[in-house]
């Protein structure tokens, strides 16, 4: 084994099967649920997750300063010593001297009646062998190091601004040259300029002093700039772990994706949609913690708690389904039309895949073959060669369009896609009537639900109206309701907005996106409009003269 291997093989800190439970007045809350991770020398590990996911509890457990109501299980090994088993006095030798924290910035985080100088000074006296005068000088040096005027040391904490207080906290944490620095929400209360300054400062200090760092934050912006590796926490469990860049680029757990999609930093143009509903907390937990908010949950997920396991190199996720599943995959699709003896190549060697719960935009100029591809994917049109797989099964004819939970397609022109002499009810109920998969009695109820979903009236009067009396926007909603009644897992929306006026277009778009967020279906949205693509797409395919390529959303203009 070479030197590097040996070096990497022995982590500086390793946390094994850590569980933290808080005892409340009436019930126990599980804050951290069987978490294991390790930290190597000199690296920076990010822990990200929404508030209450247990991030800070882990940090406090490492420092051994959880309140007495917390019950801790598992081990925390620092350099082969299980510091979890040490007495309070022995632990003090590790606190600050070996592992220090930059506490979360709050008004009360520094003692209000002691000067900045005394609060830094006492750490140095306690943990190093420096004499009084040397310690005084060290305090000044530390303050200079973090970019503060040494005169600040004579001030009391309430004289400082939030940014200055953050710097004092950093200086205090570095006072005894710790090997590990835990940084808890370093920038949560700061303005953007101060944020950037603190990030830059932490990076620079780590470069100079070469300590290992654990950064805890709910801000992707901070984590992405500081952390080499990232672990995503939800409700006390690690959901995904890997290299920061990889995770942000292609999240593989549906929670991670939802979290990233909620960040304006990652999505500067796109509408923001949070993850629907709330995390629940309870001490008796069965199954996956993300169960109640997951798009692709199965019966199994309510029973079995997923283990964190590798799905790729340096990528672990905790999901019973192996992460976000690919719902549709089309490979090497070729299609040629013959027209008066001329051959028109509509699709050549098209590859496309759609994962569950995502919005994929297929963009291209008119005549580039978008609609042909969409129709092939839905199974309505047959390809010359290549095949389409939906949930692992081959798409042939109308096998999935005639199924509940299959594929549905909404077309560009609501005037011709719906028979205008049908009543609203007849138009919407038609798929159910044709397939006959639902009992007659419950159909009317389903029609009403679908109308409610698309925000149309659902009284008997409206149900009995003929479609030709409706406006374009209303008809497009009826077309949408007609697709939704089949509860599709994939909705193909082919230029659904292009014939509508801008305001109706915006309403329909938001409605679609909102429905997708609430119901969790995947969507293939076909358009020629760049701006719309940027607004709604998770991923983007561009089609040009029958060929297709995937493009980065931020690169297109």
């Amino acid at each position, binding site marked *: 084994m070479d030197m590097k291997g040996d070096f990497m093989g022995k982590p500086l800190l390793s946390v094994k099967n850590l569980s933290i439970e808080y005892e409340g007045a009436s019930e126990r809350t599980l804050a951290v649920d069987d978490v294991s991770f390790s930290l190597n020398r000199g690296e920076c590990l990010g822990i990200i997750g929404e508030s209450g996911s247990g991030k800070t509890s882990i940090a406090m457990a490492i420092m051994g*300063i959880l309140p007495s109501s917390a019950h801790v299980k598992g081990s925390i090994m620092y350099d082969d010593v299980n510091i979890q088993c040490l007495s309070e006095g022995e632990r003090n*030798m590790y606190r*600050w*001297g070996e592992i220090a*924290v930059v506490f979360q910035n709050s008004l009360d985080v520094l*003692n*209000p*009646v002691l000067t900045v100088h005394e609060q830094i000074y006492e750490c140095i006296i*306690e943990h190093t062998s420096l004499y009084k005068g040397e310690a005084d000088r060290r305090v000044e040096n530390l303050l200079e190091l973090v970019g503060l005027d040494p005169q600040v040391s004579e001030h009391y904490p309430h004289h400082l601004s939030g940014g200055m207080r953050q710097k004092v906290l950093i200086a205090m944490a570095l006072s005894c040259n710790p090997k590990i620095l835990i940084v808890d929400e370093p920038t949560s209360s700061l303005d953007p300029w101060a944020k950037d300054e603190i990030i830059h400062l932490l990076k620079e200090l780590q470069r100079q002093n070469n300590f290992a760092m654990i950064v805890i934050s709910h801000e992707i912006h901070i984590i992405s700039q500081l952390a080499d590796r990232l672990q995503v926490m939800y409700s006390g469990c690690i959901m995904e772990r890997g290299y920061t860049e990889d995770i942000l680029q292609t999240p593989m757990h549906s929670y991670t994706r939802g979290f990233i999609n909620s960040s304006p930093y990652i999505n500067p143009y796109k509408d923001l949609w949070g993850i629907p509903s709330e995390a629940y907390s309870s001490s008796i937990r069965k199954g996956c913690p993300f169960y109640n908010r997951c798009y692709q949950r199965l019966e199994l997920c309510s029973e079995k708690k997923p283990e964190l396991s590798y799905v790729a190199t340096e990528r672990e996720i905790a999901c019973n389904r192996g992460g976000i599943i690919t719902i549709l995959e089309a490979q090497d699709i070729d299609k040629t039309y013959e027209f008066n003896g001329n051959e028109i190549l509509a699709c050549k060697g098209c590859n496309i895949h759609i994962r569950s719960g995502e919005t994929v935009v297929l963009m291209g100029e008119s005549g580039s073959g978008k609609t042909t591809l969409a129709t092939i994917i839905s199974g309505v049109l047959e390809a010359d060669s290549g095949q389409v797989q939906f949930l692992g099964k081959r798409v042939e004819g109308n096998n999935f369009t005639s199924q509940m939970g299959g594929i549905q397609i909404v077309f560009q022109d609501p005037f011709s896609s719906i028979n205008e002499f049908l009543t609203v009810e007849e138009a919407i109920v038609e798929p159910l009537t044709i397939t006959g998969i639902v009992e007659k009695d419950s159909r009317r109820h389903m029609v009403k639900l679908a109308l409610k979903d698309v925000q149309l009236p659902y009284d008997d009067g409206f149900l009995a109206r003929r479609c030709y009396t409706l406006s374009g926007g209303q008809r497009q909603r009826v077309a949408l309701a007609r697709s939704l009644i089949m509860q599709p897992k994939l909705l193909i929306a082919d230029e659904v907005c292009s014939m509508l006026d801008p305001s109706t277009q915006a309403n329909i778009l938001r409605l679609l996106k909102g429905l997708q967020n609430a119901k969790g279906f995947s969507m293939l949205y076909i358009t020629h409009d760049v701006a719309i693509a940027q607004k709604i797409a998770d991923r983007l395919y561009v089609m040009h003269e029958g060929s297709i390529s995937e493009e980065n959303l931020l690169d297109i203009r």
Partner: protein
Amino acid sequence: MNRDRTKMLLGYLLTFLIIITLNFFIPRLMPGDPFTSLSSEEGDITVIYSEEQIERYKRYYGMDRPIAEQYIGYLKNLLKGNLGYSIYYNQEVVSILKNRVPWTVAIVICSLIISSFLGTILGSISAWFRNSKLDKILYISMVFISEVPAFLMGILLLFFMAGRWGLFPLSGGMSMFTQYSTKCEVILDILHHAILPVMTLSIAKLGEFYLISRSSMLSVMSKDYMKTARGKGLKSRRILFRHGLKNSILPVITRIFLSLGSIFGQAVLIENIFNYPGIGTLMRQGVMVRDYVLIQGIFLFVAITVLTMNFIADLIYKKLDSRVR
């Protein structure tokens, strides 16, 4: 800043004026008058007056004049620093007070120091070991002794420690009719006499300081900076006394000065139990014989003391808590 200070001074001045006014009227609203008193207490020379003499003295002391006129006269005299002439003792009130005040002030200050110091330490320890056996025992016993009336505690102490076991003298501020060879002996004798009253007052106040200190420390301990201090790996002693106590002591200090009012009240009772020669016994005497002038003098003294202490409390609080500066 300056405006605040002016406001504060005006506040104190107004309070002072109200106190003077009440001070003047309260004794005069009590039933009886100085000249009909017949009782006389040990050692003091008193006179029994005839009707004619009473009339004359009333005129002499200005008590036959309308009350408003008396009030203005009183204010005028106050401005000159003249508290009047005790009717009963036939002596200047100022000089009577001069003799009596040091005794009271000494026991009050001693017991305040002892009770606040002990109370704070015990309260902090109790909070630090919250919910432990030690905490529970301390808490229950402190609540108990703070509910026992001071005079009862005094009588118990007097009965056992002085009466039964003879450890301390039964009464007075110093031994009567003895010859002292050195100054040192005088001091020891005075201390010996002061121990029981001081002990009684201290015990009476201890529970109050304990409870305040405990609850203040408990709230301080839940603060983020205490977690910071623990995280820094400091010794428990330093965390408790430097980080905790320096914050939790603020309400205790305010309470020390605020409790001056009530402790003077308790001192009055306790001095009477131990027959201690302070203003407590003097006040009882004054009330018994309706010596308006003397009572007014004592009240005025107590009021000024309490006001001054409040003022000092304000100043000290600002000094200790950098946030109010």
